[in-house]
């Protein structure tokens, strides 16, 4: 600070500046309602305004292969789900494949939910926790599916029986 203004002036400025900013935000949003969505979370600026956004390292495992694999699973689920119910016959191998594809499809879906709603930048710790919670849940569910397929009637037959109970 150069020529120090009096404490009273600084106080008045700080208040008026902060209030005008808040009023600016309120006017822009044009509503007095409290946010219907979660608040933005802690934000920080890395470097300066003129630094470009970092470009992630290109990797086909995280890019096109991942995308194609996701689509392959989704498309594969269509016949895997329709066939056993339409034909009425049951094949343990088909049922096992259905379970595996369902598990992977669900896991990838939940992964994208975690990626979207717990940003790495804002909540790095929370992201890590949820990422590993999801991994643990998927392993547990995988064990459950294996048990269900081997000791129970299998997922297709179980759905059929419960649905028609």
């Amino acid at each position: 600070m150069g020529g120090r203004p009096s404490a009273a002036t600084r106080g008045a400025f700080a208040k008026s500046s902060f209030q005008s900013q808040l009023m600016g935000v309120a006017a822009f949003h044009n509503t007095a309602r409290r946010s219907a969505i979660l608040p933005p979370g802690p934000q920080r600026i890395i470097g300066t305004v003129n630094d470009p956004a970092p470009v992630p390292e290109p990797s086909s495992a995280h890019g096109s292969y991942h995308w194609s694999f996701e689509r392959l699973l989704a498309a594969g689920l269509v016949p895997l789900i329709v066939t056993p119910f339409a034909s009425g016959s049951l094949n343990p191998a088909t049922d096992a494949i259905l379970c595996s594809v369902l598990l992977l499809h669900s896991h990838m879906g939940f992964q994208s939910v975690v990626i979207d709603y717990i940003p790495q930048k804002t909540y790095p710790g929370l992201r890590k926790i949820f990422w590993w919670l999801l991994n643990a849940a998927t392993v547990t569910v995988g064990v459950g599916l294996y048990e269900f397929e081997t000791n129970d009637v299998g997922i297709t037959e179980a759905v059929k029986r419960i649905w028609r109970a």
Partner: protein
Amino acid sequence: MIAQRVGVAALRRGAAQPFFAQTLPRAALAASMSTTPTRSWSTSACRRPISPHLGIYKMEQTWFGASAWTRITGCVLSGTMYTYMAAYVVAPLVGLHIESASVAAAFGSLPFAIKGGLKFALGFPFAFHFFVGLKHLVYDMGKGFAKDTIIKSEKILWGVSIVGGLVLAFFV
């Protein structure tokens, strides 16, 4: 940056106001000259709201968008599977009976309306996720992106999924 705007606004306001009303904003402007600009810029930038904010859109524009409902219905279906299968693993350890025969027996003893309601609560998400999944596979081939097609297909999608959910709940 913001501090400069405050100053400009204060000067504009000052032009139409009596002298005594100008003194405080001018003092504020003087104060702003001696602050470090980077710091005030970064603190104000961190206070900005994030966008987009769902509340700024009309209900019919975003609330029934298929994209969000794909995720919601998918989470309902996968969430049900995850809950049941994880419970199936721990059930023997805590002495719970949730094998398919007991669940079927318990479900069969429920009144018709509740049975139908529960079936619709899973049948509708299944139908929606199934049909929207097919639609997204068509999108992935780069087809169906005309605005009319999107609007029309979303309406058809909702109709077919609700009917599909009802059929699964009451006629299967």
